């Protein structure tokens, strides 16, 4: 009898160990935990079915059954809440980052173009400059790098390590039109094959085009 019951415990440990370590041992540990927990529950159900009915005392059988049912019910509920929170949090943080990226793109494309418009239309001319390109150059030339990147508030330099940073490119400065392109190094765009302005592929990209008719802001990927 003793031997059989101890074999139950050793068997339980082996089954749970096997179930726990079968899923890939990298990244999220939920697959291992879920697999191990399912094996534990199956083991507990089998052990209870086999073991509890061998106990002659009815009150003891009741106490063990109630304790194990409580343990299982509350553990499943707790695991469910943790799993759901985990899933939501995993989705929420990239969503926040995407919101920030989208906001930066919109903000840092529109503001320079609006400031150019203000000078162009509201009569606040700089010297003799009257074209959109002249005004834009006068206002923002000092913020444009050799690689045609536009520096913005909170981004006073670009370095090679800035792989995930939002980049604003000045792609066209003509007397009648200015084009700024914002490219994320983090947020995925709609098409994974899309060729971004920097040469990367698949990232979120928007552009703002300023003409005499106003600003056209559009998502290109």
């Amino acid at each position, binding site marked *: 009898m003793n031997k059989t*019951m101890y074999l139950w415990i050793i068997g339980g440990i082996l089954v749970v160990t096997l179930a726990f370590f079968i899923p890939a041992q990298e990244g999220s540990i939920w697959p291992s935990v879920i697999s191990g927990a399912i094996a534990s529950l199956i083991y507990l159900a089998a052990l209870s079915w086999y073991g509890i009915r061998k106990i002659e005392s009815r009150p003891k059988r009741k106490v063990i059954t109630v304790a194990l049912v409580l343990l299982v019910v509350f553990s499943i509920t707790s695991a469910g809440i943790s799993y759901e929170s985990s899933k939501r*949090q*995993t989705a929420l943080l990239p969503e926040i980052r995407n919101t920030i990226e989208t906001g930066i793109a919109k903000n840092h494309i529109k503001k320079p173009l609006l400031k150019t418009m203000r000078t162009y239309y509201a009569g606040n001319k700089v010297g003799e400059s009257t074209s959109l390109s002249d005004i834009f150059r006068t206002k923002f030339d000092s913020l444009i790098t050799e690689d045609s990147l536009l520096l913005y508030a909170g981004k006073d330099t670009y370095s090679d390590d800035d792989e995930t940073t939002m980049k604003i490119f000045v792609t066209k400065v003509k007397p009648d039109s200015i084009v700024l392109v914002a490219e994320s190094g983090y947020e995925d765009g709609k098409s994974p094959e899309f060729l971004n302005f920097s040469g990367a592929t698949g990232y979120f990209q928007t552009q703002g085009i300023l003409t005499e008719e106003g600003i056209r802001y559009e998502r290109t990927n």
Partner: protein
Amino acid sequence: MSEQTKIYFWLPWAIAISFGLILFWGLEYVGLKWPIGIWEIAQGVDTIRAINEFGNGILDMGAYREQRLIAFSGLILFFVLGPGLWIISEIRNEKREVRKPEDRLKKGPFWYVGVILVVIGLNYAIPATVMKAYYFNNTWESAEESRNIDKIRDQLFTLASGAAEHYYLSFKNGEEGGFINDQGKFSLQQLESYDSDTQNEYVLAPIQSDSVLIIYGVGYTPGAKPDFENANGDSGKVQLAVEVRPENEKLIEFTHKNTNTR
């Protein structure tokens, strides 16, 4: 039965349960939760991974061996060893020959280990689940509010930049421009982007100056003050405001005046 031979059958239970409680709360007191929080450890790893991905945009595929080991130990201790040893010991104790009444108090070390482990497991599972269920709703309600505020802020910026653009274009061809001019007063409906957010409502404050606008965004989630009167006639909803000053250096500025956020 004489007074000397009175048997307290509850004594082993009292000892095991007390020991389980002391051990559980002792571990809590010294801040050592190992290896009790199996699910919280899995959740914690996902949080770390999400933060790493938030920072560098790369999916974190670390092994997290220590956390795996802790979660694994928890499963073995509380779902295999605890119940297993308890049940086995109960069966074995019943089969054991009882010569004296007090022999019934001799439960054996495996019985104590099994009961203590189940007590610790229960002690953790029940209060922790109740607390988690309570905080779960609060946490995700806050997240939904933040999501709503982000959406309103984004749309307010779009409307504000559209309004500024509208302002500048009103001076085209040397005409008398501004938010109030010969053509009438500016309205949000004149902007193409006005209808692009159907969940929230956007209202223009009465225009006091031809070069300043205030736009309110009213959301669908509750704001900080339940009796707050929203710009659209609702009450208690989250509300943000943005000022558009096309002639100023700061063209667009979010303001706290007449807002209802936490």
